[in-house]
């Protein structure tokens, strides 16, 4: 069994509790242990970087240092947390002066980050470390005929980290195919959901959400799968506000990829946090009833 230092992030404590629950269940089902980072703090989201870059990086470094102390690679289910941790770790590994400065601050909590661990998004753990073949093997209830729109969003793929394909990634589609569903291609799969603009520039964010929903609905998706709590919240919780604002009648379920994986593995829906949505997922559940 491989173990990871798990950083849930603020959203998964409550707003996206179902992502946390389904992440725990599905990793467990494939023999992975997620050990929560002790006493972790907020990663700064995007907002902290608006005010102070150095302190924002220090906040991230504290979590990295605690993860490192536990001796496991760092994994985050939230794309923004992942991006912050990935780049903070990269800068600290590359820039000795920065590392010295931040480690001087970390001393106050008896911590030090020496850069010996890797940072991964939860989806990377499934796709790269576990492997899609293994996930296909664990699929006892393939979601045959379910039309899933895989929604990457932004920070899981951008900024570019190495030599990966940022214009046409396929790993999400591969995961959806592995659980027996149809991964449908649509124009907005890599476009922005508005992120925190939903608070600061509401009209702009609702417009982005509308365009995204329309793009998935036009191609007759049954469900949009996400890998980020902010994407899920914008697309699902604000779907009604989009309807009011633009006179549309969207009613498309938005689920975490881990919830769909869990259903395909025959895990009980309650343990996957299904039932706290604004938009009913009943139709999706019918696809998971027949065992292979």
């Amino acid at each position, binding site marked *: 069994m491989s173990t990871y230092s798990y950083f849930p992030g603020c959203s998964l404590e409550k707003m996206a509790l179902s992502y946390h629950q389904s992440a725990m269940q599905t990793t467990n089902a494939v023999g992975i242990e997620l050990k929560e980072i002790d006493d972790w703090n907020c990663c700064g989201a995007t907002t902290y970087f608006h005010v102070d870059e150095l302190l924002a990086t220090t906040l991230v470094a504290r979590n990295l240092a605690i993860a490192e102390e536990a001796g496991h690679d760092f994994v985050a289910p939230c794309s923004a947390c992942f991006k912050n941790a990935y780049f903070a770790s990269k800068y600290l590994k590359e820039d000795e002066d920065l590392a010295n400065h931040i480690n001087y601050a970390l001393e106050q909590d008896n911590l030090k980050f020496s850069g010996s661990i890797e940072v991964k998004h939860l989806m990377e753990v499934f796709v790269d470390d576990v492997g899609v073949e293994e996930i296909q093997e664990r699929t006892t209830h393939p979601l045959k005929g379910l039309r899933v729109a895989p929604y990457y969003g932004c920070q899981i793929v951008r900024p570019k980290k190495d030599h990966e394909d940022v214009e046409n990634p396929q790993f999400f589609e591969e995961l959806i195919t592995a659980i027996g569903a149809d991964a449908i291609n649509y124009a907005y799969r890599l476009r922005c959901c508005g992120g*925190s603009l939903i608070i600061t520039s509401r009209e702009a964010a609702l417009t*982005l959400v509308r365009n995204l929903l329309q793009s998935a609905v036009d191609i007759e998706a049954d469900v949009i799968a996400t890998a980020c709590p902010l994407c899920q919240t914008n697309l699902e919780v604000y779907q009604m506000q989009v309807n009011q604002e633009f006179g549309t009648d969207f009613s498309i379920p938005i689920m975490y990829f881990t919830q769909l994986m869990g259903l395909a593995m025959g895990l009980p829906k309650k343990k996957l946090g299904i039932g706290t949505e604004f938009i009913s997922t009943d139709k999706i559940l019918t696809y998971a009833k027949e065992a292979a």
Partner: protein
Amino acid sequence: MATRPTFSEEVSNLMHASHGNPLKTCIQCGTCSGTCPVAEFMDHTPRRLIGLINANQKEDVLESNTYWYCASCFHCTVRCPSEIDIAGLMYSLKRYSIWKHQYPEDAIGPVFSETFVKSILRSGRSYEPVLAPSYIFSYGVREFLNEAATATNLMLKGRIPVIPPRLKRLENFKKMADRIIPMGGAK
């Protein structure tokens, strides 16, 4: 003879962590503006804003709402043929304008960002109900009611925490932050 840095150089100097090329390498192709999902809401498109910076039009840049509309999707950054970190630039302009306390009057972003930072330094984790007052009163009546309805629904679904989260080692956490930005008694 010593010379003062130009506005363009000043902005470049604020991009500590970005590893992109200098703003001067911008060829004004407009790929960023064509890619940006919120360009239609901005008073200057990203391409034009970079042009203004390179022409040292400081006031126009500080009055602009462009960077407060940036949602950090990094689409411009990965597509820029000159490999300028444009989203990184937007972050640095946000910091510059907060530092100068100069931004469009109706912008919610600056106040929200500062409230967010203070709340993290106070408790170590983010907590939505504490943040709401920083923006909710600038909403119109309809938006306000919509938000209130959404918040009620979230509460009913058990998706908003009742008790604010707090770190166990909060004192250490605060002392850590203090080594980066000493804040005296103002905590």
